[in-house]
C-alpha cells in the first residue's frame, strides 16, 4: 500500500511562528527601547553583531537551501561522487569565519569597555555628563526585597528606585542572603548582587518615565515578586521627593535593617520609606554578612502553600 504524502501546505504550517518575528508592535520590547546611553550602547552592539554575522549567515542559508533543492536525486543534476576535497574551498571555509570572528572580536572588546559596570565609558567619557554631580545609591537585596539607600541624602526606599534624569547614577550593590541580579532593561544591563561582596553599576536616564527593574537571578521562593519600579523624574521633582521622604520617613539603623532583611515575599509590591539613615549602613551590612552575623535560614516549606499562616507571616 502506498501511503499518501503529507500535503505541502500542511508542512509549511509548521513555519507560521516565524511570521511572529515581523509585525509586532515594539513598545513592549524593552531591549529595543532604551531610555539611557548604557542600554542604548548595548542595543547598538547587538545590532552591529547581528549585521556582521548576517553577512555570512544569510548567504550560507541561501546556499544551503539552493543546494538542497538543486541536487535532489530527482533533478538529475551533475553528480560528482568523488568530490571531497578542494584547497580553495578549504581556505574559504576557514577564512570566512576567521575574518568574521576577528571583526566581531574588535567590537566585543570596544563594547565591553563602553558598558563596563565599573566604569562605563559611554557615561564617564561623555563630555555631556562631565560637569553633572552624580547621584550615589547603595543597593542591598534581601530575601526577597530591594533596599535603595541614598547615603548623601540620608534616606532609603525599599522596593522603589527614584532617580533624576540626565544625571549619572552610581550604584554600589550587595546582598544579605543569596545572589541576585540588578537589572533595569531600558536603562542598564545586568550585574550580580552578591552577599559579602560589593559590585558596581552606573546609569543615566535620558527620559522621564517609569521603568521596570527586577532581579534577574533566581534567589529562592520569593524571586518572582522581586520587582521594583524605577522612576526617572526631573531634577526638581527629585529634590522635592527627597524632601518628602525626609519628612515622613522612619529612622533606619542597622538593627532595623536586620529586621527588614528577614525572609519576606513582596507579594503586594509594598514600598517603604526611611529617613535618617545610619551613615555607613552599606559597609556594616557587608561586614556582618561576611562574619556570618546577618543570615536568616529559609523555612523549609515556606512557599509550599501560599495560603498558610507561615507564608502570611513572611509576605506582605
Amino acid at each position: 500500500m502506498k501511503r499518501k504524502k503529507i500535503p505541502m501546505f500542511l508542512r509549511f504550517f509548521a513555519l507560521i511562528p516565524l511570521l511572529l518575528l515581523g509585525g509586532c508592535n515594539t513598545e513592549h520590547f524593552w531591549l529595543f527601547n532604551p531610555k539611557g546611553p548604557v542600554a542604548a550602547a548595548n542595543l547598538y552592539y547587538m545590532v552591529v553583531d547581528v549585521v556582521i554575522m548576517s553577512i555570512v549567515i544569510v548567504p550560507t542559508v541561501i546556499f544551503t537551501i539552493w543546494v538542497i533543492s538543486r541536487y535532489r536525486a530527482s533533478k538529475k543534476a551533475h553528480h560528482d561522487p568523488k568530490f571531497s576535497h578542494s584547497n580553495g574551498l578549504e581556505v574559504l571555509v576557514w577564512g570566512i569565519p576567521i575574518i568574521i570572528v576577528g571583526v566581531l572580536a574588535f567590537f566585543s572588546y570596544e563594547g565591553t569597555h563602553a558598558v563596563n559596570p565599573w566604569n562605563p565609558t559611554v557615561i564617564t567619557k561623555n563630555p555631556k555628563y562631565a560637569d553633572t554631580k552624580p547621584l550615589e545609591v547603595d543597593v542591598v537585596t534581601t530575601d526577597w526585597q530591594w533596599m535603595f539607600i541614598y547615603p548623601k541624602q540620608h534616606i532609603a526606599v525599599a522596593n522603589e528606585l527614584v532617580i533624576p534624569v540626565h544625571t549619572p547614577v552610581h550604584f554600589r550593590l550587595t546582598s544579605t542572603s543569596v545572589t541576585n541580579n540588578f537589572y533595569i532593561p531600558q536603562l542598564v544591563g545586568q550585574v550580580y548582587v552578591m552577599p559579602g561582596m560589593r559590585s558596581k553599576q552606573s546609569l543615566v536616564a535620558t527620559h522621564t518615565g517609569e521603568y521596570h527593574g527586577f532581579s534577574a537571578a533566581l534567589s529562592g521562593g520569593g524571586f518572582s515578586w522581586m520587582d521594583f519600579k524605577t522612576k526617572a523624574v526631573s531634577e526638581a521633582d527629585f529634590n522635592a521627593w527627597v524632601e518628602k521622604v525626609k519628612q515622613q520617613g522612619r529612622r533606619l539603623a542597622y538593627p532595623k535593617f536586620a529586621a527588614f532583611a528577614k525572609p519576606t515575599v513582596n507579594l503586594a509590591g509594598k514600598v517603604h520609606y526611611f529617613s535618617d539613615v545610619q551613615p555607613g549602613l552599606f559597609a556594616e551590612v557587608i561586614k556582618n554578612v561576611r562574619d556570618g552575623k546577618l543570615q536568616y535560614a529559609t523555612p523549609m516549606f515556606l512557599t509550599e502553600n501560599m495560603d498558610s499562616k507561615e507564608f502570611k507571616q513572611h509576605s506582605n
Partner: protein
Amino acid sequence: MLVDLQGPWNPIFGRLGLLLEVHYNNPIIFFAFMMVVIGGTAALSWVTFTGRWGWLWREWLTTVDHKKLGIMYILVGLVMMLRGFVDALMMRTQQAMAVGPDSPGVLGAAHGYLPPYHFDQVFTAHGMIMILLAATPILVGFMNLIMPIQIGARDMAYPYLNALGLWLTVAAASLVMIALFVGDFSHAGWVGLTPLTELPYSPGVGVDYYLWSIQIGSIGTTIGAVNLIATIIKMRAPGMTWGRLPIFTWTTLASNIIALTSFPVLGVALALLTLDRYIGTHFFTADLGGNLMMYTNLFWIWGHPEVYFVVIPAFGFLSEIIPTFSEKPLFGYVTMVLASMAIAGVSWTVWLHHFFTMGASPGVNSYFSIATMLVGIPTGVKVFNWAFTMWRGKLRFPTPMLWAIGSLFLLITGGMTGMMLAVPAINYLVHNSVFVIAHFHNMFLLIVYAAFGATVYWWPKVFGFKLDEYWGKVFFWLFTAGTLFVFVPMYTLGFMGMTRRLDYIPHTSWEPLLLLEVIGTGFYLLSILAFVIQLGVSIYNREKNRVVASDAWGTSRSVEWMTHTPPPFYNFAVTPVIHARDEWAWRREHGLTNLMPEKFLDIHMPKNTAVPLIISFFTLVCGFALVWRIWWLAAATFAAIIIAMIIRSFDKDTDYIIPAAEVERMEKEIVARAEGRIPAGEPAPVGGGAGGAYASKRTPTQRRDND
C-alpha cells in the same frame, strides 16, 4: 551533628521523619505516583506473564554486550526525557496561567497551580534530567552501540566497566525519580546556584538528592569515557589508521576526552558543596571566608565542556547521515576532524561567558568573549562542510536526512544567538533571560534532531527492519511545529526582557506569546504520539520492512554496514581488514561485498556478569541513605560496594572462546536465514535485535552452561 538541620533526625531513620510533614494530598504528585505505579505494574506483569524473567536476566540485566548496553542507555535516556517533558508541560502551563496580578491561584499557589516550592523543583529537575539523564545517556548509548562496530571491534575494551557505567546511570536516574515521591528535589536551578544551595537557604533534602544523583551519574559517565577512549585507541581493526577512522568515531573520541577531563571538576565542585552541607565547611558560603563564585567557576569549567560533550557526537551523526544520502564522501574529512578537536580544546577556555555579569573587569570579559567566539570558527567550518557535502550530490530525503537538515538549520540559528550571547555588551541585556533558554534549547534540539535522525538511520542495522517512513515524517513535522511554536515566541520574549525561572508573570503583554508556547508543547505532545505510533506500526509491519542486506540504505559508507543485519553478538565473523577511509564504500566500488570469509577463527568474548547490577543497587541505596543522613545504612552499603569489587577482582573466569567451527556454523545459519533458505519458522524477536535474531537463541551465558 556539625550543621543545624531543620526538622527531626534520629540515628536509625535519619531525616526520614520529615516525610510526616510532606503533603501527599497534592493531586499532581498523586497522579504522577499513580502513573509510575501503573506503568511499573504493567511492565512487571508483562515480564512475568510472558515468562521472560530468565530472558531479562540473561540477555539484558547481566549482559556486557556493547550493543545491548547501548540500547539500554538509549532507553533510559528516552524514559527520562519523557519525565523531563512532563516537567516542561507543567512549566509552560504554569507560566501561561500565572500572568498578571488578577490571575487566580489554586493548590496553594498565589497564581497558577504551582507555588514556587513546586515550580522551582520542576524546572531544576527538568534541566538536570534533560542534560545529565536524557541527552548524555542517549548519546553515550549511540557511542556504545555504533562506535565499536565502526572500528571493527568485537566489544569495548572493558565490557564489565561498560555495564557498570550503564547501571550507575540507572541508579542516578532512579534516585531522581525517588525524589519525586520521597521528599523533595533541589529548587536552585540545574546549575545549583550557590549560596542558594547552602543549608540555610535549602534546608530540605532536595539539594542532597541533586548532589548525590549527579555524583553517581557522573562516576558512570567518567567510567564510560575511559572505556570509550581506550576502545578507540586500542581496539581498532587492522588497517584502521587514524586517517581512516569513521567521523562518528572521531567525534566520540573528542567528546569523551572532554568528558574524562571535565567530569572530575564537577565531582569536586559538588563534593565541596556536599561538605558545606554535611559537615559545615565554608567553601561556597558568603560568610567566614567562603567564596560562592568559586562554585560558579568550577561548575562552568565542567558545564561548558559538557555542552560540547553532547553536541560533538551530534555533529558526528550529521557527518554520517549527510554523506550517505548525498551519495558522496564527506567534504573535508581532515578539516572535520580538526574542527571537532578544536571545539573540544577551545571549550575549556570559555566558561566565564556564563557569568559575564558577575562584574569581572573588562579585560577578563573581553578575553572570555573572544575565546567563546573562537568556537564559532570550527562550528562555522562544519556547517560549510556539510553544505559542500550535499553540493553535487544525489540527494535523497528519507527521515534521517530530514532530521539532519533540520539539525543543520538549528545549528545555524543557535550558533548565531550563541555568538550574540558571547558579546558582553549584548549579554548584559539577555543573560538569565528566556533568550538564553531559547539559545540552548535551540542547541539541544539540534542534538535531539540529530539523534532522531541517527535512530532512524541505524535502526535497521540494530533491529533488522526499517522504521515506518510515513509516521516518521508526521513525527518530524509535528516536532518541528512544536520547536517553532515554542522557541520563536521564546526568543521574542527574550527581547521583551522576560527573565527565566519566573513562577509568576507580572506583565500581561507577555501572555499571547506564552500561550503560543503552550500550543507548541501541544505539538510536541502530538509528535510523541506520532513517534509511538511510528514504533508500533514499524514493529507490527516488521516482516514487510525487513532488511537482510548488510547495508540498509544501499549507499552507506562506514564499517558498521559491513556486518550482518542485525550484527551477531560477536559483531564480525572475522575481524575485518581496513583498506580505506569509508571502507564499505570502497569495498562496494571494488565488488568486495561478500560477507562470508574463507577461513574462520576462534573468537574471544567476555562473559556476562551480575556484579555491575549489584554494585549499582548498593550505590543507589547508599545514595538514598546519604540524602537522608542515615549513616549506618550508608556505611553498610558502601562496605558492600567495596566487597563486591574485591570479589569481582578475584574472578578469573570472565571470558570464553567460541571455536572456529561453531562460528562457521552460526555464520552459515545467519546467511541461510537472510537468503530465506531457512523458513522464518520463528520470526526474529523484535527486542533481540542487537544481539541479532541468532544471538537471542544462543547467548554467551547459555554457552557457558554447555561447555
